[in-house]
């Protein structure tokens, strides 16, 4: 378990079993191997960044974690359960909610319907859904203003907020974010990342996948560097920001 050794060296606690524990995961499209022997973990309460360039395999990894794409080897454990072969809906029900790359809102449905569908697995708990919807509207007031509008008519930033709100209504114990900054103006990126920090402070465990290494490592506690489907480095985020290789490859100075 090489990463654990490094974590220990970095002074991270190993006392509790991780909320998410990925061991030697492989994933491929037909004969094309994309994810090679990835191991990583996320402790409850953490905000972990996974940084990699375009085509590194970030989305494939998240799709594999969410059960949208099968793994070819390895295990994924969540809250003590082996969920490697679980269907996607069961993974969501267990509390692993993803904000996918490119938002993927339900364009022809209203903002409110998108949020309601986010709570598809929680719909029986009417009180909770109402409260959580209020909370999402507080986080993103613009969504409340536009709640009757079709999601497809929202701007990119608003769609990102909606996708995050929708995932929050899934009652996440672990929130997977796939490049939330993609295609957004710097001011909007700041806004989205401010909310990510706020959610984490409120206790949501987050795995943040980003090409924007600077922004992601600035808010994360720890980070992993993904290159061509392999994790090549892991350390506390501050160390990664100061690392020469990382700076050259991802921060551009």
């Amino acid at each position: 378990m090489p990463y654990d050794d490094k974590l220990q060296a970095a002074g991270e606690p190993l006392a509790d079993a991780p909320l998410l524990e990925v061991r030697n995961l492989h994933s491929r499209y037909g004969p094309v191997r994309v994810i090679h022997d990835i191991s990583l973990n996320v402790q409850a309460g953490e905000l972990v960044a996974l940084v990699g360039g375009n085509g590194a395999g970030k989305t494939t990894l998240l799709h594999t974690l969410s059960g949208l794409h099968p793994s070819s080897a390895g295990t994924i454990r969540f809250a003590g359960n082996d969920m490697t072969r679980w269907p996607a809906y069961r993974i969501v029900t267990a509390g692993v909610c993803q904000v996918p790359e490119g938002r993927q809102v339900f364009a022809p449905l209203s903002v409110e319907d998108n949020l309601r569908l986010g709570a598809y697995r929680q719909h029986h708990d009417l009180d909770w859904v109402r409260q959580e919807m209020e909370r999402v509207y507080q986080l993103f007031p613009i969504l409340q203003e536009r709640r009757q509008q079709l999601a497809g008519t929202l701007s990119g930033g608003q769609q990102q907020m909606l996708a995050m709100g929708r995932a929050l209504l899934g009652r996440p114990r672990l929130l997977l974010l796939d490049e939330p900054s993609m295609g957004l103006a710097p001011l909007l990126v700041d806004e989205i990342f401010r909310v990510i920090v706020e959610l984490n402070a409120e206790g949501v465990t987050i795995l943040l996948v980003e090409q924007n290494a600077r922004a992601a490592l600035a808010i994360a506690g720890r980070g992993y560097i993904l290159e061509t489907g392999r994790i090549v480095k892991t350390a506390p985020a501050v160390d990664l920001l100061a690392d020469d290789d990382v700076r050259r490859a991802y921060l551009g100075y």
Partner: protein
Amino acid sequence: MPEQIFQFLVTGITVGAIYALVGLGFALIYNASDVVNFAQGEFVMLGAMTAIALLGAGLPLVLAAIAATLLTALVGLLLERCAIEPARGASVVTTIIITIGAAIFLRGVASLLWGKNSLPFPAFSGNEPIHLGGATLLPQSLWVLGGAVLLVSLTRAFLNRTLLGKALLACSFNPVAAQLVGINVKVMLRLAYGLSAGLGAIAGILAAPITFSSYEAGIMLGLKGFSAAIVGGIGNPMGAVAGGLLLGVLEALGAGLISSGYKDAIAFVFVLMVLFFEPTGLFGHKVAERV
């Protein structure tokens, strides 16, 4: 002449209501899976033939109709479970070919069970024609129209007002996102097939007293329902309903004003023209949003 046209309209709307229900079935399955289910016409036939058989076995009409609808819905569910689901991951074209195979199979089973003759079904409330401002219509036409209005309204309310209905639509709008909010896409597909089969069966039962039914009645009804769905913009449930009505009226006008020999040809020429000038259908708007 105006009276005659009125008569054609009345006839056309009745026939169109049947097409609308069949088209609605196409749209539901297409919505959930992008697959055109060519066994849809067979559901219509199965509903009618099962009801006829149950009636013959001594069941009262209402019970026969309900049982036939439920049995056909079960056949739809089984079709999805036993033929479509095992081919998960196959291309849409493969799946469509599977539905064609299923249609041929169901037709074969029907001909073995019930023979090759056209079988009658009694009208629900007699055959005394109703006169309506120069036109006459059979009481059964009112059953067809009333049934169609009720079913279309219920389907519409289901899709637009219930979480389950919206989840069904979500599967078509964005299957990846649908899975990420925890919708069990497999179950939704079964639901779509069951609902479509049930809708088809009711259409078949409502129409049977007017058209009679036979093991091959599903072929033409299926094609017309498919045409209705295409005209309306496939995947748009209410478009399919409008398309069905339009098709029925055009057919009746064509048959009355030109020649009844051209009835079917008129319908299909119309579909080709719609596809040529408006490939997404007259009421289709989903293609752009689908990407």
